[in-house]
């Protein structure tokens, strides 16, 4: 199987800022690839380069087998792009928006009408298809934007942070829509700042930082590397913290971390369930009272910490995580 995207030593500079620093990335055909990284890691620059909106300064980039630098026109026929903004025309209906893009892809009026209808159905927008897009909710706009990127029936769909700024329900609806596309046979490259998004959608995850690839693999492989989930317990009494830490320490990778100020103890575990139950029984038998028990996915900070040994640094990513 040939690669859908093959980047070798891809470099892009903006003045003194290096957005892509010799990025190597291979996305096999027939799957969803997630590019995961903090703000300023080079995700958007990479997507824009694949979409032929930017010319790389150095390196090679093949998209669907064509050189993005030398044959941008051919590449454009193979891709559909949904950028960070919903690039739809608010003064046109959902259907008109889709028909417009289909026409620009060279479809006849009849074919454009048919593909717009099919896409509306696929994204669950049939009932709202004839309303002006400016009356749509944020989630509907994103879905319509996604529709606009696939109405031309691209081989490769490029989604730049598709769910940023969406409420949880719209987010899940968009995930479902993306998954259906994949079932229908479209390859997808998406960027995200959220580990759970990559986990839900992608079969291959590439983690990038400062313009280079830091780690790559399936979500399961990466999780093995970074230690699956995180268990957090809140003790009721300060005095119990050492005992809680000791019990949890036996569960997972390395020592449990104690945060005395919040009386919280946390540890990484490979697979949660049974070991956690056993630990809880031990704590219960020792008469230790707990305020709260939680199991969660590591966040991007923790992923970086375990993969690179250093936390995410720049202030841009701090702001992004706070948001």
């Amino acid at each position, binding site marked *: 199987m040939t690669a859908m995207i093959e980047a070798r030593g891809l470099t892009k500079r903006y003045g003194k800022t290096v957005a892509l620093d010799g990025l190597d990335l291979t996305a096999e055909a027939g799957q969803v690839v997630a590019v995961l990284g903090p703000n300023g890691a080079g995700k958007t620059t990479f997507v*824009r380069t694949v*979409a*032929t*909106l*930017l010319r790389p300064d150095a390196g090679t980039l093949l998209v669907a087998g064509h050189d993005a630098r030398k044959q941008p*026109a051919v590449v*454009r*026929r*193979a*891709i*559909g*792009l949904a*950028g*960070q*903004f*919903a*690039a739809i*025309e*608010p*003064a*046109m209906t959902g259907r*008109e928006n889709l028909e*417009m*893009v289909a*026409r*620009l*892809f*060279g*479809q006849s009026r009849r074919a454009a*009408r*048919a*593909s717009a*209808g*099919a*896409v509306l*159905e*696929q994204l669950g927008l049939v009932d709202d298809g004839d309303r*002006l897009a400016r009356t749509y909710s944020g989630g509907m706009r994103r879905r319509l934007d996604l529709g*606009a*990127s*696939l*109405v*031309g*029936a*691209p*081989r490769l769909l*490029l989604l730049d942070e598709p769910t940023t700024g969406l409420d949880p329900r719209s987010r899940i609806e968009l995930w479902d829509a993306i998954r259906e596309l994949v079932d*229908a*046979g*479209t390859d997808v490259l998406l960027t995200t700042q959220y580990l759970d998004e990559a986990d839900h959608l992608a079969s291959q995850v590439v983690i990038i930082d400062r313009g280079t690839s830091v780690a790559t693999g399936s979500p399961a492989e990466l999780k093995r590397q970074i230690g699956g989930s995180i268990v957090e317990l809140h003790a009721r009494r300060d005095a119990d913290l050492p005992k809680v830490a000791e019990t949890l320490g036996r569960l997972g990778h390395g020592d449990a971390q104690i945060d005395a100020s919040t009386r919280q103890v946390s540890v990484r575990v490979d697979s949660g369930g049974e070991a956690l139950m056993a630990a809880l029984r031990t704590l219960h038998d020792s008469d230790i009272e707990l305020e709260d028990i939680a199991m969660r996915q590591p966040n991007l900070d923790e992923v970086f910490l375990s993969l690179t040994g250093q936390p995410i640094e720049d202030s841009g990513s701090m702001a992004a995580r706070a948001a």
Partner: protein
Amino acid sequence: MATDVVYGTAGGGAGLARSTATVTRRALLRYVRTPQLIVLATVQMSLFFLIYRYMFGGAIHIAGMSYVDYLVPGFVATGVLFMGIGTATAMAEDLEQGFVDRLRSLPIPRSSVLIARAAADTAILAWSTAFTAAVAFAVGFTLHGSALEGLAAFGLVVLFGFAFEWVFITMGLFAGSAQAAQGMGMIVFPFAFVSSAYVPVSSMPSWLRVFAEHQPLTYMVDAVRALTLGPHAQALLGHPSSYFVSRSLVWTLAIIAVALPVAVAKYRRG
């Protein structure tokens, strides 16, 4: 409709004519379906015209003619500049909101996006000019030349507008944001006011007159004026209409020849 999209069959893309028509339609629909935009495009120019006509009309006296006959050609010819600020803003907005990114990622000729912007905004400009002309006739404006000359005058205004659209498209491409584009648009004020549009150039101090006499707007205003004033033109302007029309056309071509390639180059570079 049960037609399923077959993935992986993306077509060859629309050609120049179709992609331009498609993107033009979108820009026009945005005007027509956005009340603020279409109302503004329709009444803004005529409203300002009425203010000028009734405020300055009493104070400014032009020998041998009524002020309204002097003002209308100048007003509509410089009006294209003020309409152009909207073009710069719209272009910057399309860039800012990702619409241009979408179009750039499609298999269409890149120039079609810019041609569509120029075409749509020239159409709006023609509409706005026609509406203002109608209002002008209602408040006493008369054509002293033939109807054909009147139509030619209208055609010239639209042509000047088309040429300036390219300047404003370039401005919008460089601006970076809609707000910045609007700010850059303020450059039109000296060109509109330091011209023969509202008052005779001869009434200005000599240092200002040098600029006013030689800038393109004055030639354009006087070309339109010469075509609408008929026999009065020679007396007021000192030359027949052909003198001004030919010079204004040279300016028009020069503006297009400079601004269009700059706009296209900037757009291609991204």
